[in-house]
């Protein structure tokens, strides 16, 4: 059973190939292929999960792809509890998103291609989580990046969409550069790329010290890019140009989770190297803070959710950096469900009112009951309210910061902001008086293909996290662990503080946006400079534009000028020289060579025209010459 787990990614790949080559004209069949593939994958993943619960593994299956003598490149699967969790997350969220897309993308001219891309993405993500060595994970890493690009820029007629796709690809690629360097350093130190062998070398101390720290930091660069951590977080908000289901799948639940997954998979490195681990944690919390603060003041519904994603990812990274494998991955799982739900619900709203701007919404709760209810559920979950999933996972994370007071304070601050902006979003969208009556009139609840996934994900948002309840004998922490299974301890004080923080965030949002007791505009006025800074996302895009993009363009312009003038100049110069040379040769040929030839002819003709007078035709002249010749011969003899 486990041996055949490769079927799970193979099915979406087959669906992709079939759609692309055969069925893309038939929308229904294409969608059916894609959804069918992922559902079967989900069904297959369940027994895989149970098998792994029974036997934690790790189970490794591989075959050698290329043999280089001293090492060999493998294609293989590594199955352990983390893999099982990721498989479930990916297949569930992917299924929900694909079913939802039936309704959302209805009528789009490139419907089949959309499902082909989704299948390709699903294949890439599943392959990524099953990989057993750095090379393979990198290949799938890049595939995931490719499909993300394709899907972000799906509506490429819009310039902002195609620009966003490019931005995403380039930014993640920058991170991947560090990733490659990390892989090379690992290979240099270990002579192998297989995860198991590398971890063994780390534990036995062969791979250690500065080299290990450097490798760890570089490997983390990949995660920084892919999971949109500071300073490579700038692509994620722009990626909202893609269709909302894409945002839900890729930029909330799965692809961005790949970075977190990577850090989790190679946590051995960060546990062994204190410095690298601390770097990871610092970047995580920094990202979390920056993103949460920006999300406070955004008006685009998807942007708020995007910054929320970045912030929550930062949470997970921080937890992993501080050494808590369980907390980071647990939050990854719960976050996938409620963030996917949030995005899909937002998509439902956008589908209804045809705008992303929350300032044009309001009071939609009356018209879109299911959407509103599910969104509120997800918001409670993300705010960490007992007894929803988010409460348990967030509690684990805060617990992980226990030995580091600074981190704890900052994490709680982030929790406050998270709760605040999520409920700001909910109140602005679903409550109050409609700010745009025209749009309000046209709003309606979404079709069933869209609402059923919402409901299912809402269910998961509430209950999926219950597997991590600390009092369970065989809970999450005894399944997904690093080193030894442990039973999570429950700290009432920590839980109580985080719950309080979440509730106060909700309360503030309630006051400002529901009751309107505190006016948001006045607050903005009082903190105008801060507000402007946050509204403009700390001017990161402008900074990158000035420091990186513009100089790059200038360099390109320079090389263009160089190519046009100098290289082409050389080429043209060579051509001109050749031309002059040929002109000179032509002159030479005409004047000198032809001159010589013609001159010879002229000379002969001239001589002939003179000599011909010897042919007088008269006999006596000839006789004279003959005798003169005889005399000459006499003379000479």
């Amino acid at each position, binding site marked *: 059973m486990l041996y055949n787990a490769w079927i799970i990614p193979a099915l979406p790949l087959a669906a992709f190939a079939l759609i692309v080559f055969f069925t893309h004209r038939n929308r229904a069949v294409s969608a059916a292929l894609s959804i069918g593939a992922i559902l079967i994958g989900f069904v297959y993943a369940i027994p895989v999960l149970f098998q792994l619960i029974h036997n934690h593994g790790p189970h490794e299956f591989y075959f050698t792809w290329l043999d280089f003598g001293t090492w060999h490149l493998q294609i293989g699967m590594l199955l352990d509890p983390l893999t099982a969790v990721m498989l479930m997350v990916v297949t569930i969220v992917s299924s929900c998103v694909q079913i939802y897309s039936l309704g959302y993308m209805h009528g789009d001219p490139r419907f089949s291609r959309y499902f082909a891309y989704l299948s390709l993405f699903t294949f890439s993500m599943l392959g990524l989580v099953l990989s057993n060595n750095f090379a393979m994970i990198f290949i799938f890493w890049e595939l995931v990046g490719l499909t993300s690009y394709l899907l972000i820029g799906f509506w490429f007629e819009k310039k902002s969409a195609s620009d966003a796709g490019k931005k995403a690809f380039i930014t993640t690629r920058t991170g991947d550069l560090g990733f490659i360097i990390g892989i090379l350093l690992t290979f240099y130190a270990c002579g192998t790329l297989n995860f198991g062998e590398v971890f063994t070398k780390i534990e036995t101390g062969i791979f250690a010290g500065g080299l290990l720290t450097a490798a760890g930091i570089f490997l983390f660069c990949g995660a920084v890019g892919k999971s949109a951590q500071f300073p490579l977080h700038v692509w994620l908000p722009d990626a909202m140009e893609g269709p909302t289901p894409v945002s839900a799948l890729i930029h909330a639940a799965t692809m961005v989770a790949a970075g977190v997954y990577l850090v989790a998979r190679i946590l051995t490195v960060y546990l062994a190297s204190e410095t690298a681990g601390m770097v990871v944690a610092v970047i995580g919390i920094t990202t979390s803070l920056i993103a949460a603060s920006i999300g406070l003041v955004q008006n685009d519904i998807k942007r708020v959710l995007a910054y929320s994603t970045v912030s929550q990812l930062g949470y997970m990274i921080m937890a992993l950096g501080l050494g808590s494998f369980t907390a980071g991955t647990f939050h990854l799982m719960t976050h996938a469900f409620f963030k996917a739900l949030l995005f899909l619900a937002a998509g439902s709203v956008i589908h209804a009112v045809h705008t992303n701007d929350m300032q044009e919404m309001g009071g939609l709760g009356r018209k879109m009951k299911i959407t509103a209810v599910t969104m509120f559920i997800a918001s409670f979950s993300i705010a960490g309210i007992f007894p929803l999933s988010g409460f348990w996972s967030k509690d684990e994370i805060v617990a992980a910061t226990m030995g580091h007071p600074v981190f704890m304070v900052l994490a709680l601050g982030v929790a406050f902001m998270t709760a605040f902006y999520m409920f700001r979003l909910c109140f602005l969208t679903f409550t109050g008086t409609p700010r745009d009556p025209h749009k309000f009139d046209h709003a309606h609840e979404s079709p069933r293909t869209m609402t059923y996934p919402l409901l299912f994900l809402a269910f998961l948002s509430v209950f999926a996290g219950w597997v991590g309840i600390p009092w369970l004998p065989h809970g999450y922490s005894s399944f997904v662990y690093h080193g030894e299974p442990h039973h999570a301890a429950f700290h009432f004080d920590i839980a109580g503080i985080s719950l309080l923080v979440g509730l106060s965030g909700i309360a503030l949002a309630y006051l400002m946006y529901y009751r309107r007791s505190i006016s948001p505009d006045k607050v903005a006025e009082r903190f105008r400079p801060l507000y402007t800074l946050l509204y403009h996302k700390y001017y990161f895009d402008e900074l990158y534009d000035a420091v990186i993009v513009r100089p790059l363009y200038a360099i390109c312009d320079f090389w263009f000028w160089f190519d046009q003038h100098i290289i082409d100049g050389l080429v043209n110069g060579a051509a001109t020289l050749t031309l002059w040379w040929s002109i000179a040769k032509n002159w030479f040929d005409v004047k000198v060579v032809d001159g010589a030839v013609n001159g010879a002819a002229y000379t002969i003709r001239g001589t002939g025209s003179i000599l011909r007078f010897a042919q007088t035709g*008269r006999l006596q002249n000839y006789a*004279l010459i003959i005798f003169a010749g*005889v*005399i000459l011969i006499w003379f000479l003899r």
Partner: protein
Amino acid sequence: MTDVSLTSVTFYILSFCIIAGGIFTVSSRNLFHSAVFLVFTLFSVAGMFVMLNAYLLAAIQVLIYVGAVAMLMIFGVMLTTQLTNVRLRHVNEQAWPALAVCGFFLAFIVYGLWDTPFQVVKADAPVNTSHALGTLLMTKYVLPFEVVSLLLLAALVGAVVIAKKD
């Protein structure tokens, strides 16, 4: 001129006649005068033959050369009188170069022949050359004799053919 015998005097007179006649033949403005001088020259040559004991040859010379060829020349002169004024040049434009060439030619001949030792035989010639020549003609030289007769025939026919009016 140390030898003043009759032989040498005769020789010198005859040679003078020949040379003078020749010069006047080639340089005479009037064509008829040239012909007459040619006859005079030919007679003198016949006389020279007599000096050389070639009696038959001298007779033949007079008979044929003077009697036929020279007559023919005179006939030709008469028949081809050109009705032009007499002041035409009688020599062409290459007279002086021809003179030079002839001078050199003569110089070479003289120079070549002067010291050449010919095998002179001090013997007498046969007195009756007619008989001797006739015998030779019929014995040793019969082939040239016949060929020459053919030649004469051809010349005869040819002259008639060429010159007849058609």
